[in-house]
């Protein structure tokens, strides 16, 4: 893909958006069907961000792992490092969707949030 063409990842429409960064610092965006896409392209050209989902270890639960997500996207360049940090998380059951198991991962302001209910093992 040429440097300023992006496939928007916000929704299944997958708009092909062109974003141009001009000399005076202004960003021109075209090809998007909605505002979310415009925002996405602007970010992509300056400071791309990504969401992240992964799993954490659970002790004493009816499942050995719980799926998690980030409360908000983080800089793309920190993804692998963040994934590695999440792999180290180990918590006790029970867990509920929405529980925060790590705050402010790598100083990004994003929390690691549980997306799977895990009951306690009787």
């Amino acid at each position, binding site marked *: 893909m040429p440097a300023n063409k992006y496939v928007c990842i916000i929704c299944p429409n997958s708009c092909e958006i062109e974003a141009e960064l001009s000399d005076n610092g202004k960003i021109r965006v075209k090809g998007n069907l909605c505002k979310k896409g415009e925002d996405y392209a602007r970010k992509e050209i300056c400071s791309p961000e990504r969401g992240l989902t992964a*799993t954490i*270890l659970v002790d004493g639960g009816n499942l*050995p*792992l719980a799926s998690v997500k980030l409360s908000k996207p983080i800089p793309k360049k920190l993804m692998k490092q963040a994934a590695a940090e999440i*792999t180290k998380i*180990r918590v006790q059951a029970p867990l509920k969707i929405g529980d925060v198991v790590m705050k402010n991962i790598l100083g990004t302001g994003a929390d690691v949030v549980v997306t799977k209910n895990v009951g306690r093992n009787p």
Partner: protein
Amino acid sequence: MTESYDIAVIGAGVVGSAIARELSAYQLKILLLEKECDVALGTSGRNSGVSHAGFYVPTGTLKAELNIKGHEMMPALCRELGVPHHEVGKIVVAKDEDEREYLYELKETGEKNGSKSLRIIGKDEIKELEPNIRGIEALHSPKTAILDPFILNIALAENAQKNGVVIRLNTEVSDIESNGGFKIKTNRGVFAAGIVVNSAGLHSDKVAAMAGIEGYEIYPCRGEYHLLDKSKRGLINGAVYPVPPKELGGLGIHLTPTTDGNIMLGPSAEYIEDADNTANTSEVMDKLFMESFEFLPRISRKDIIRSFSGVRPKLIAAGSKAPADFVVEESRKVPGFINLIGIESPGLTAAPAIAKKVAGIVKEIRELKPNPVFDPIRRPQLRFGELSDREKSDLIKKNPNYGMVVCRCQTITKQEVIDAINNPLCATSIYGISKRCKATHGRCQGGFCTPKIVEILEQLCAASPNDINLKGAGSELFKGKRGTP
């Protein structure tokens, strides 16, 4: 400390296991060595599973004699050992006038060999026996049977073990010293034995050479197979072989049902360099399907659930017209060393007869006293999926693990998997478990049940996740597990 035995059998394929079991009927200290993590991982686990009636083998050969004898012994043996064995019959089909002569040649050979039930049948009877097959004439062998080669091999080994045979898996022979008795060097120690039986199949020439017996060379010849989905089982009733094409290039296909309810296409025949090269090739897989399809147009490529191959330990090189017979004899050069070399088809059929012959050879070497507690019986495995609804219901009441279906394609329950894992040979590779309980052998090829089997394995064997393997050391499934150091 060197363990010492009366007899060491090298190779726990169907022949080696049959020999060990046969000898366990006598008061002997017997050792059965196998380099793989389980029995039936060599040629014994890669064949058509047919008990041949004896018309494909040249008259006057040891092959013919042992084929006929083995074929006669097989039904009772399979009953004793709880091995699935179905007398489905076979037809060899001629599609035109030119091919009829071949049928008569086969019949004549079979009858000379001692096969008593062969008959020539016409168009109408072909249609009656096999409604989906067309031909003008066929050779009908009603006594040709199919059996489960994995279970036969496993059953022979388990019964041998039950009767006192010591079985060492994962034990590969690297050298043999003969000095009024044998010292067998392996990767797991040295074993002493008075008599050695070399049933090492594809590597029997090398094992003979280890003992100083030169002159044997195995020429590996690979045969590829396709396995068809069970939904197509009804297309044929028994085994169906069209008369092989006279022109070069044709594979000469066989359609063989299996005791599990699939149909096998194959095998092909191709000489290869490496005896362990059990790959499938695109050219042969394609040809195998196309020729089978021409013969039976009601199959489609979508019916193939798996392909595999087996390698024949041939004693004749490619292109050679020289006949080659089984070698089943005590070495003249190294007394006490009994060689079994070149045991390709009809090796499976002949296995019980080979075992008796070897026992006869051993009798010439030393005294044999019958084992008073020899028990030839092995109970057949329970197959939940084959029971009636009432039987299923009663079984679950007694043991709820029979109510937990693990393999959905084949309806294999948790208890059957547990029993397979707890097998007497302690063979806990995924292949080993699958051969015993038939999980992963269905159309999804383990996609659904592998995670469940792995879970049960971890629980039962307290195995480290890194040890769980497909077919022995080096074939581990995992590089680790979260939360496990």
